[in-house]
């Protein structure tokens, strides 16, 4: 990836801008088809290039997970393996607790996302729609959270949790994950709610609807696109979280995927990489599936939203 994207062809722009509308239409029509064809080819090539860049690592991962352990150690890691084996997968299942880790990751990601969406929606509704005297202050307080590095909270939170006996629970990981993601979610909801026309609320109020009913009838149904966006963005970060899980989870039974991958670390750090990759290939799948489903929902929501104006 280069940094070229935002650099426009400056001379073309300067030449074209003043001439806009003065140029004879005939000439323009002659130029456009060829220009279009070239730009279309260029854009397809670029799209394909980006595709290779983004997908190749996953293919490499799969290929490595099918590679014999010694072959991986000795041969060029980017060459095509001479023979494929499923050994790594059996080792991955034997030495780790993959299904348990996946389940824990699903619980934590699901729980944190739920917490995040409920709190984000409710907070944005209170601030942007209901409004109250210090709403500006509260908004500022939340937005401050966007900029806080998570590592800072580790030791204080650990001490707090140990005091109230909440260490080593799913909840102890969900709370900070959702908490630190909340400002960004709130921000997204706030900016979305500012697009909902006031007249809708006014009409509903005239019909005698109270704040709860308005939320349920108007705001909530219109929020689905934003919900999907919030979930998609945050699920990635929550799914991959290592720091909080490593700090607050102590039991084997509660380990998430990033923690579980350490089962393949051997003496003094000698890691069974091919088994690790087999495990990664397996654990990536649930999230990818969720994405495929959500992605359709998001597109559908966005396009219908856009066409309604």
């Amino acid at each position, binding site marked *: *990836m280069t*940094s070229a994207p*935002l650099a426009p062809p400056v001379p073309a*722009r300067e030449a074209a801008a003043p001439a806009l*509308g003065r*140029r004879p239409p005939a000439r323009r029509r002659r130029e456009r088809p060829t220009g279009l064809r070239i730009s279309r080819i260029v*854009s*397809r090539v670029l*799209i394909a290039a980006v*595709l290779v*860049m*983004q*997908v190749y*690592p*996953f293919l*490499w991962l799969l290929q490595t997970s099918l590679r014999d352990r010694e072959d991986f150690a000795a041969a*060029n*890691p*980017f060459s095509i393996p001479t023979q494929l084996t499923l050994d790594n997968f059996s080792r991955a299942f034997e030495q780790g607790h993959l299904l348990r880790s996946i389940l824990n990751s699903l619980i934590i990601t699901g729980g944190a996302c739920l917490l995040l969406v409920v*709190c984000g929606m*409710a907070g944005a509704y*209170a601030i942007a*729609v209901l*409004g*109250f005297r210090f709403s500006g202050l509260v908004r500022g307080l*939340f937005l*401050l*959270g966007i*900029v*806080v*590095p998570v*590592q*800072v*909270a580790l*030791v204080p*939170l650990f*001490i*707090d949790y140990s005091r109230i006996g909440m260490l080593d629970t799913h909840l102890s990981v969900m709370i*900070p994950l*959702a*908490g*630190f993601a*909340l*400002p960004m979610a709130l*921000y997204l909801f706030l*900016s979305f709610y500012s697009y909902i026309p006031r007249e809708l609320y006014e009409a509903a109020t005239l019909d005698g609807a*109270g*704040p709860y009913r308005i939320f349920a009838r108007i705001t909530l149904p219109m929020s689905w696109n934003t919900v999907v966006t919030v979930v998609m*963005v945050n699920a*990635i970060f929550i*799914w*991959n979280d290592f*720091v909080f899980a490593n700090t607050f989870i102590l039991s084997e039974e509660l380990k998430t*995927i990033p923690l579980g*991958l350490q089962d393949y670390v051997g003496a003094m750090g000698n890691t069974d990489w091919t088994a690790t990759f087999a495990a*990664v290939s397996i*654990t*990536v799948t649930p999230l990818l599936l969720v*994405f495929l489903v959500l*992605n359709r929902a998001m597109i559908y929501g966005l396009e219908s939203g856009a066409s309604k104006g």
Partner: protein
Amino acid sequence: MLPHRSRLSVLVFLAPPLLLFGGGVLLPIVQSLVLSFFEWDGITGLDFVGLENYRALLLHDDVFRTAFGNQLVYLVICLLLQVGGGLLVATLLMTITRGREVLKVLYLMPAVISTPAIALLFQRIYSFEPEGLVNTLLGAVGLDALARPWLSDVSTVLTAVSVPEGWRFLGLYTVILYAALLSVPRELEEAASLDGANAWQVFARIRFPHIMPVFVTTLIMATTYALRGFDIPFLLTNGGPGQASELVTTYMYKTAFTSGHYGSASAISVIIVLECLVAVGLILLVLRRKAD
């Protein structure tokens, strides 16, 4: 503001987020802020030292200074790749009609792969012995002279650890910006094209202003994530060689959990917060001025 709102209803909606945020974020932050005025090793008692931690960091700590500069470079590279690259790819996606949804999911793939796997992949991509992908490709086009151990060379390592982070979330920002681009009314674009605007003009005059709010959000998001970026550099080089790829965040982590200087680490995190605030303030200021 809704006329029929009651104090209770505001409270009902506001309580859950305030509880979550207060308990999960604000409380530890305040505790950390307090801690930044103390010296504490986690075992023996707390010693109040006032602003000494800050003074030592800002005036006497060469590693901190290096890390600060590195973090800015890291930020620029991440922004170029994520927001710049994301916008370009999103625009490209607009030019095709089929397969966009599948493409988007495929673009997101690097984001869902666990960080340790990404780190290991890049360690091999940059590797010199055995020869990694970058060096192989350079050799293939006759640029052998440029081949080097990218992660061990002090002049290339910072870029080398920044690129994976930028690349990894390219798809995420593409998806967000693409969704915004989709919401640009077609009629406006078509009208502009009929008026003779070329593709760039359509982009600069119609599309970009229209997606500005989303773009700002994306920019803020990417900036704050980059200023807090941590795991890939930590796993790839642990800040080395020397301090060539040390970031403020990795330095903070080490100060707390390797060196056991919790007070000093808290002071670093307070500085990171300030740094992020300034960055976000600058973004908003520049863009607002531009908008006026």
